[in-house]
């Protein structure tokens, strides 16, 4: 029995890992911008209108960016070369001014943001499918199984076949713009290696110490940064999680309330919702937990809903 649950855990982890491939979606204006940069947008008007929303918004009026959209077709070589040069400059600038870069968006003017960065500002419609599921499934089933490791590995493979199944589109309904924004906020120090900084951000969050120590008054605790960054969000949720593992559900709830207030469009809202259900259960407020679970069903991706359901099932019903 133990092995089965271990096996299903492994499958769950594997699925979660592979499902995170779905995060790889370009910003909505990126394609138009590429077309403009390569001089094949539908005329200068289209080129500028395609990019202007984002560009005007962030006022990325560095020489390279402005010339890029204004006269896309001719002298593309010069423009592209200029752009790469501008990007180099930006790389340096963005690393030096990590928070200002995000703050308010206006400061970006000084940071000479290149169009590529500017377009990331544009809201991203959740319409891109990373790997079209039907096609994927067809390919999976056609897969020449014999060529790959027969046995456990294949078993895992067939188990994974539905990893796009639980609703990739639903997964996209989590606040993707917020994800992007939060990620962008970190981009300054991720210019060269986001992975390193991700690792650095997440585990180095102060554990059991200020500002998020479990003994601290949650009303005083606040994220280190006033801008909503993913790192800060994770800190809050980690603190709540810690409070829960220490059996301090009220504190966890206080932290989660504060998280909900400060990160109303947070990228980690689904995680926070799961934690809230868990905290309510732990605080002997099962009915509230069940009510919340009901409200959340339909708004959260399936795997969160499943997690919440499992939490409720594990908790004893009040008599």
């Amino acid at each position, binding site marked *: 029995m133990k092995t089965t649950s271990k096996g299903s855990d492994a499958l769950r982890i*594997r699925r979660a890992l592979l499902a995170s491939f779905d995060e790889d979606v370009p910003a909505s204006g990126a394609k138009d911008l590429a077309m403009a940069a390569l001089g094949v947008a539908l005329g200068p008007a289209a080129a500028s209108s395609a990019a202007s929303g984002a560009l005007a918004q962030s006022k990325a009026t560095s020489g390279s960016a402005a010339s890029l959209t204004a006269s896309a077709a001719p002298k593309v070589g010069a423009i592209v070369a200029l752009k790469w040069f501008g990007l180099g400059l930006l790389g340096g600038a963005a690393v030096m001014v990590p928070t200002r870069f995000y703050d308010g968006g206006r400061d970006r003017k000084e940071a000479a943001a290149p169009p590529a960065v500017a377009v990331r500002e544009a809201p991203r419609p959740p319409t891109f499918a990373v790997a079209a599921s039907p096609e994927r499934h067809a390919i999976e089933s056609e897969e020449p199984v014999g060529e790959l490791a027969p046995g456990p590995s294949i078993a895992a493979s067939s188990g994974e076949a539905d990893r796009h199944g639980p609703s990739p589109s639903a997964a996209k309904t989590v606040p993707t713009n917020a994800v992007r924004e939060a990620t962008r906020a970190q981009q300054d120090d991720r210019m060269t*290696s986001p992975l390193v900084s991700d690792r650095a951000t997440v585990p180095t969050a102060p554990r059991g110490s200020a500002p998020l120590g479990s003994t601290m008054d949650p009303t005083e605790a606040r994220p280190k940064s006033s801008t909503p960054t993913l790192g800060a969000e994770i800190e809050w949720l980690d603190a709540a999680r810690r409070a829960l593992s220490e059996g301090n559900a009220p504190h966890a709830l206080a932290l989660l309330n504060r998280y909900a207030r400060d990160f109303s469009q947070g990228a980690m809202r689904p995680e926070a919702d799961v934690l809230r259900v868990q905290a309510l259960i732990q605080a002997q407020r099962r009915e509230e937990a069940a009510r919340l679970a009901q409200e959340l069903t339909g708004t959260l991706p399936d795997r969160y809903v499943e997690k919440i359901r499992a939490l409720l099932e594990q908790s004893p019903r009040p008599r």
Partner: protein
Amino acid sequence: MTELASPIEEELDGPEDLGESETDDSGSADEPAAFDRDARSRARLRTLIDRHFNFVWRSVRRLGVPEAGVDDATQQVFWTAARKLDAIVPGREKSFLFGVAVRIASDARRVSNRQRRREGSAELEIFSHPDPLADELVDRKRMRALLDEFLDDLSIEVRTAYVLYEAEGMTVPEIADWIQVPPGTVASRIRLARKRLDQLVERLQSVGDRGEKA
């Protein structure tokens, strides 16, 4: 499949350095086709971008270009394609673009790896996270970062095969055709990657178990 030139080899073997070319191109009068293209080739390039932008974008990302550089690397891929439009065999556009993406991602990876070495190894720091991993499972961003870590430890050849297979859902023969290596080699690369992923999952699980016991 062998009669078709491998886009990857073509790109990898090409003597030109993209960075150099860019600066050289800026005002050169004898610049070939790319910037002097007629309406038809412009239309073709446009179609290429329109149809394959998302694919190229996610490919360069998955092949190791740091997130902040993905938009630019993607443009670079199409820029290279623009210069070689005539060499792209109709029907093989996607694999051609992927070949270019592999080359550009390899360059980006080298830079990124150097940076990582400079910053010191924070290798698998996430494994020391004291909280139960079960809860971490819902953390998409962390999962993506872990996946990146896993992918970064693969060679570009193994990574290429694995990404096409696991993320793009291609079959082994298709991949073999794209990257011009025997299917057996592709299969063994995928096997290797999967074995590594199993090891990663095992480690994640053991952290989760420790967390639960604590």
